């Protein structure tokens, strides 16, 4: 099909409006009173479907990519290129015997995976996946997201404690320490974004990142000095919050067997996995929204590609980063983990708070002043980084070696 004429605005393009059109087509025949309810159910079903599938193929992608990085093929037996592997895994997890230790706290042991998945899911409600594609619009949606995600480590604690296993108990303690440490930088790194965008609503924050400087340089927060710093802090804290390597201390296969997962099997185990990937996806989606311009295209000429596709691409890139990091780094120790947070990320985020405030206050500087503004902001990132990084890695370093005299 050839379009007769290019639409006046990218927002009017047929592909862009496809999800909304589809929803209207599906709900149009319903009586007015029912329509919003059915529409809400539809958006929930869509989010569940899309992210469920994303979870399934993330596990496959992770295993494939890890395999490639480690000189092995990864799963390639089930279906073409192993594409049916996630479904085989699901069937296996569903049919496995569910073993609960007799000493376990039965109620909490059952509740933990359920609570974890639920908490990982509800944050997705406020993410704008595309232009006009947000399930719940509210004024304080950023706050909602973090309030919803705050309790995920609580569920991990529940799992660890309820198992009545010593490894699991250690994992529960670690999960708590990790949460207390990393919730702070995660939230602090978001504050400058809120200050600069002047809103707690995810839709407004994405809208604030629209447009291009000189037609080339998108106004994404991650492309400003303070924003880049906040983005980096956010991603490190997000890694820790989603218990991914190198911060996978509650799981710590080589130390605590599987930590809080030690006493879980079958479908409950699969639920933990699902929660891990969903949490990762939710935090990445939030990072895209806050720092990477949400659904905005990187260049004006690329706006013909629908907004949700851009969102998907950015999300997948961040998730790929998670996998790559997992394949590369060793794990930190718990005291190093907390030290990294309190002595590095938190001060950096606090300095960045001021940096973001200055940026917001100087929003009307143009021309040469804009360059000065950039320079000040960059200085506010680089100088504290150098100081903090030096103090963090004090005492460690490469060594030179002697040889025994013959």
């Amino acid at each position, binding site marked *: 099909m050839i379009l007769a004429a290019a639409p006046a605005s990218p927002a009017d393009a047929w592909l862009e409006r496809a999800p909304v059109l589809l929803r209207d087509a599906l709900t149009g025949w319903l009586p007015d009173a029912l329509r919003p309810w059915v529409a809400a159910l539809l958006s929930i079903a869509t989010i569940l479907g899309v992210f469920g599938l994303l979870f399934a193929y993330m596990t496959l992608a992770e295993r494939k990519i*890890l395999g490639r*990085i*480690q*000189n*092995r093929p990864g799963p390639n037996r089930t279906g073409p290129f192993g594409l049916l592997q996630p479904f085989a895994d699901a069937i296996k997890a569903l049919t496995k015997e569910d073993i609960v230790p007799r000493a376990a706290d039965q109620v909490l042991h059952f509740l933990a995976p359920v609570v974890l998945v639920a908490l990982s899911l509800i944050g997705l409600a406020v993410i704008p996946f595309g232009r006009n594609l947000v399930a719940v619009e509210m004024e304080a949606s950023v706050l909602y997201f973090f309030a919803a995600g705050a309790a995920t480590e609580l569920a991990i604690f529940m799992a660890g404690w309820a198992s*009545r296993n*010593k*490894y699991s*108990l*250690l994992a529960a*303690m670690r999960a708590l320490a990790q949460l207390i440490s990393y919730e702070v930088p995660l939230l602090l790194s978001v504050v400058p974004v809120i200050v600069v965008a002047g809103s707690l609503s995810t839709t407004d924050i994405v809208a604030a990142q629209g447009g291009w400087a000189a037609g080339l340089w998108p106004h994404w927060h991650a492309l400003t000095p303070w924003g880049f710093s906040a983005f980096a802090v956010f991603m490190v804290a997000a890694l820790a919050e989603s218990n991914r*390597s*190198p911060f*996978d201390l509650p799981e*710590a*296969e*080589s*130390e*605590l*067997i599987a930590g809080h997962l030690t006493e879980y099997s079958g479908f409950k185990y699969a639920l933990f996995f699902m929660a891990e990937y969903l949490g990762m996806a939710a935090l990445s989606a939030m990072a895209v929204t806050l720092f990477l311009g949400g659904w905005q295209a990187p260049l004006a000429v690329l706006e013909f590609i629908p907004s949700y596709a851009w969102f998907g691409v950015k999300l997948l890139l961040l998730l790929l980063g998670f996998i790559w990091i*997992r*394949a*590369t*780094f*060793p*794990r*930190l*120790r*718990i*005291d*190093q983990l907390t030290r990294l947070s309190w002595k590095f990320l938190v001060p950096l985020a606090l300095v960045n708070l001021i940096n973001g405030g200055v940026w917001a206050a100087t929003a009307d500087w143009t021309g040469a002043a804009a360059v000065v503004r950039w320079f000040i902001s960059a200085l506010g990132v680089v100088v504290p980084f150098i100081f903090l990084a030096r103090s963090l*890695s004090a*005492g*460690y*370093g*490469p*060594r030179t*070696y*002697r*040889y*025994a*005299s*013959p």
Partner: protein
Amino acid sequence: MMLPDPASTGLARVRKIEGSALGLRTPAFAPEEGAGDLLEVSLGPHHPSTHGVFRMDVVLDGERIVRLKPVFGYLHRNHEKLGEGTSYLGSMPYTDRLDYLNSMTNNWAYAIAVEKLAGIAVTERAEYIRVILAELSRLLNHTCLAGFLMQDCGCSGTPLMYAFREREKILDLFESLSGSRMMCNFQRFGGCRVDPSAEWLAATRKLVDGYGAFLDEFEALLSGNEIVMARTQGVGRLPAALAVNAGVTGPMLRASGVGHDLRKVDGYGVYPRFNFRVPIGREGDVYDRYMVRMLEMRESISILDQALRGLPGGPILDPKSKQRGLRPKAGEAYGRIEGPKGEIGFFLVSDGTGNPTRYRVRAPSFVNLTILEDLCLGHSVADAVIILGSIDIVLGEVDR
């Protein structure tokens, strides 16, 4: 909370730590009276990081180790008693199973013991082949160890897979030479079993030439990695005095700053003909143990290069030597070499019959493991795992 009342289980006694068997433990880590409640965890025998069936009974205060008891014997196979009931040659394949990563060096140490006992000479070509195989074995062992150590540090498999790729190449060489990848049963009294072909030597040459590049890559990725340094530097310090008194040998001893290497000290085989250095560490921590092994591999490459270049012709077995029905006259002999894990030695007593009356193995893994508690006290569980990894044990050799 997971623990019943400490007094009722006898754990209360734990709070007061007795001095170690060596009497060298620093008292700084003894928990103060009435410290937090203790948690007793049994790490192993089935644990991803105990490198086999091995158990550490750990008493924890939070995550800090206040007491650690290594428990082994799960893999005990009566090795020494078997040796006393078997002919001299019959024991050779059993030695493969001691340190199953390094059957070549085990064979060699045993062969030296028997050669001393029976007064058998070794041909020059065989000596060179033994050096080549021993150094390949060292490369194999240290490469694997580096990979395992990184795995213990929490890498999800990548360094281990890189290490195993190189290990496969060496195992392929062993297989094409001896017929078996790990249980080579290659050395004989007075020489070795198979003469390496020109193709085999060319393949070895190729491997040796490419190994430096692999080490460069591995080190570029890991030796300077911030997290690796943070995890390993200052962890599990082994003072030189304790190392010497405990009989620790091999790279562990050298990492503590003692330049003791049997290849230099005994000068067995044809090692005095080669030019190589002995790297030593300063701190004696996990990082030093890792780095000393990495540097040792560079020296091994240099030895291999020299040995391959200088490999003489001639027979591989002394024609006067006897393999079957060996009946050395009454006496005793101790043969030892610098194995990849330390001094591996065999002590044999003969009464003139076809089997030794006493057959004893000095296993480096076993001796090095005795100081595990001294290294781990005051560190966390996560550290204990990498300290154990840096000691480099193989349970086949520890339990025998």
